[in-house]
């Protein structure tokens, strides 16, 4: 019964960061039993993420992309940079959650453990070298997030959010699997680089089955990234879930989805670029348009930010449509910037929530500047950045994506994007106008906590610094992707 196959200990090194996150999550689950104060649990969670970040950092400098576990796990700069986004996402989410979950009376240890497990899923997705691992990482991330969305068990809208997220997520998973099955059937493998080889050597590029496989995979990820017309779940889920989970969800799964799209479309289906670009273009236009326009009508700030999130995914898609590594670089750059400005905006939204007062209506922001000048100033920065106004980072993110699109001949797309960006400025700046130029309806007290203040400081600083010195981030992204 000799298999002739052995796994040496050296092979474990590439997944040490993921193992660290899992161990941290497990420790949190046990810690939850013995520790009263959940701040300790949260702090250990952050420590765990930082240790994993250190692990990734040590593995960063490897010039050669490593593959491990029978070509199923890829460790290259692309994956590592995405993991950086995920680490920052989870650390900042934990930072803004501690006080908030206390207010919501849902301070479970499992919350922090699930955040870590979800992040592990995202990390696996970014590093996936095989469609099987990709699917499992996706499900890990998704299942953890479904639970997180429904964590406020007493609130119907949280239950409803989890319900809608679950059903539409499971539906899209079935689509993804069908696409994977068709791809497997036509190429004979599920390994991403082997698929590329098969597409070149076998005569299947024109085969309708291959096309159908790509379509199903794109549709499935369209659901995950909330592109229009697959976005139906997002506004309800963003509104009903606990706000800290919404903040987590608006960045993490989206970034993970883009990581996978970049890997699958560029590496596996690189030969068929013309075909998948033609699918993505109408999706991008619909998404930018729909997200910006429908957001105008929203009165709940979480729903507004949901549609804003949808629109941003449309802009990010332009980088992928450009189809070059420069385009991919611009999308990844945008994602990191988006992490900071979105997290910052949600941090402010969380501050508005206190006992007995939801603070989610846009009208609650009226006159905020009079009582809370600092918070209003920060919100102004984030709103400007989301709208894409210089000198904030949001402008830089959009600028590079548009440049990449124009460079590849998609000038009309860039123009459409600029138009809808201008449209979106209306609802972002409406918040600013309310804060500074209207009178407060009632006086609002903000719930702050030290960790939330730190997150606010960091995000605001990054949004401004990256707006003025964009090359810091851009060079890091270029180095990661192009090597």
């Amino acid at each position: 019964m000799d298999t002739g196959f052995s796994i040496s200990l050296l092979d474990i090194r590439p997944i040490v960061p993921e193992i660290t996150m899992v161990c941290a999550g497990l420790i949190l689950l046990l810690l939850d039993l013995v520790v009263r104060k959940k701040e300790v649990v949260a702090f250990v969670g952050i420590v765990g993420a930082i240790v994993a970040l250190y692990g990734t950092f040590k593995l960063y400098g490897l010039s050669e992309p490593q593959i491990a576990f029978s070509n199923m796990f890829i460790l290259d700069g692309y994956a590592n940079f995405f993991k950086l986004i995920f680490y920052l996402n989870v650390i900042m989410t934990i930072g803004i959650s501690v006080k908030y979950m206390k207010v919501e009376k849902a301070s479970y240890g499992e919350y922090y453990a699930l955040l870590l497990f979800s992040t592990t899923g995202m990390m696996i997705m970014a590093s996936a070298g095989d469609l099987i691992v990709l699917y499992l990482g996706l499900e890990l991330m998704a299942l953890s997030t479904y639970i997180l969305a429904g964590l406020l068990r007493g609130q119907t809208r949280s239950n409803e959010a989890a319900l809608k997220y679950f059903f539409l997520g499971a539906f899209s998973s079935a689509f993804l699997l069908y696409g994977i099955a068709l791809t497997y059937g036509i190429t004979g493998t599920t390994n991403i680089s082997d698929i590329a080889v098969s597409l070149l050597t076998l005569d299947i590029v024109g085969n309708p089955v291959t096309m159908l496989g790509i379509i199903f995979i794109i549709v499935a990820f369209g659901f995950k990234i909330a592109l229009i017309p697959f976005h139906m779940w997002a506004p309800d889920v963003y509104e009903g879930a606990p706000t800290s989970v919404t903040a987590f969800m608006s960045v993490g799964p989206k970034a993970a989805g883009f990581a996978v799209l970049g890997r699958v479309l560029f590496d596996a289906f690189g030969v068929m670029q013309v075909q998948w670009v033609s699918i993505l273009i109408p999706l991008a236009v619909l998404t930018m348009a729909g997200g910006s326009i429908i957001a105008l009508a929203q009165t709940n700030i979480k729903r507004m930010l949901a549609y804003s999130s949808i629109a941003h995914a449309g802009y990010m898609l332009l980088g992928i449509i450009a189809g070059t590594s420069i385009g991919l670089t611009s999308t990844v750059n945008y994602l990191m910037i988006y992490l900071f400005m979105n997290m910052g905006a949600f941090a402010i939204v969380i501050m508005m929530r206190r006992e007995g007062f939801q603070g989610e209506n846009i009208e609650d922001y009226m006159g905020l500047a009079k009582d809370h000048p600092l918070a209003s100033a920060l919100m102004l920065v984030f709103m400007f950045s989301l709208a894409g106004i210089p000198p904030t980072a949001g402008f830089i993110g959009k600028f590079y994506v548009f440049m990449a699109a124009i460079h590849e001949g998609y000038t009309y797309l860039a123009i459409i994007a600029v138009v809808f960006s201008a449209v979106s400025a209306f609802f972002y700046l409406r918040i600013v106008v309310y804060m500074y130029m209207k009178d407060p309806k009632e006086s609002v007290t903000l719930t702050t906590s030290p960790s939330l203040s730190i997150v606010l400081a960091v995000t605001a600083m990054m949004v401004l610094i990256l707006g003025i010195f964009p090359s810091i981030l851009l060079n890091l992204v270029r180095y990661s992707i192009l090597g």
Partner: protein
Amino acid sequence: MFFAYFAGMLTVLSVLVVTRRNPVHSVLWMLVLFVHIAGLYLFLNAEFMAAIQIIVYAGAILVLFLFVIMLLDLKKDESVRKFQNQWFLGLVIGLIFMVVLVSTASKITVIPPLGEYSVDAIKSEGSMMTIGKILYTEYLLPFEIASLLLLVAIIGAVVLAKRRIE
């Protein structure tokens, strides 16, 4: 021949599963469906899969469904409508899917070079041994991730559904 029987039964059973008024009936038809799928797997030389299908799907997941249906104590569908208002649109979309997918599928042939796990190779060691060998060597990483997934499922079930202690 046997495939015709299975194909026909599976189609009929699928339609039955999605159209019953009583969810318990749907679950029971689904059970019959799973047994037929297991039979199909036997024809495709995947004995281990057939066994797993029965044990996990029919034996665990459907039982879970039945538990929940009983727990929720649904009155036998008081409302007369069992389909949504836009059920016709769903039917149209379903039919479009069917036409597109079946027409594409009918053109499928075996294109890639064949692997080495031929019917005889699998038969010589047994389906379970073959899967076991590669599951723990080549496919080790997905296996470990799957175990984590199951842990998350346990956490989720407990966190979401357990009775509140306060």
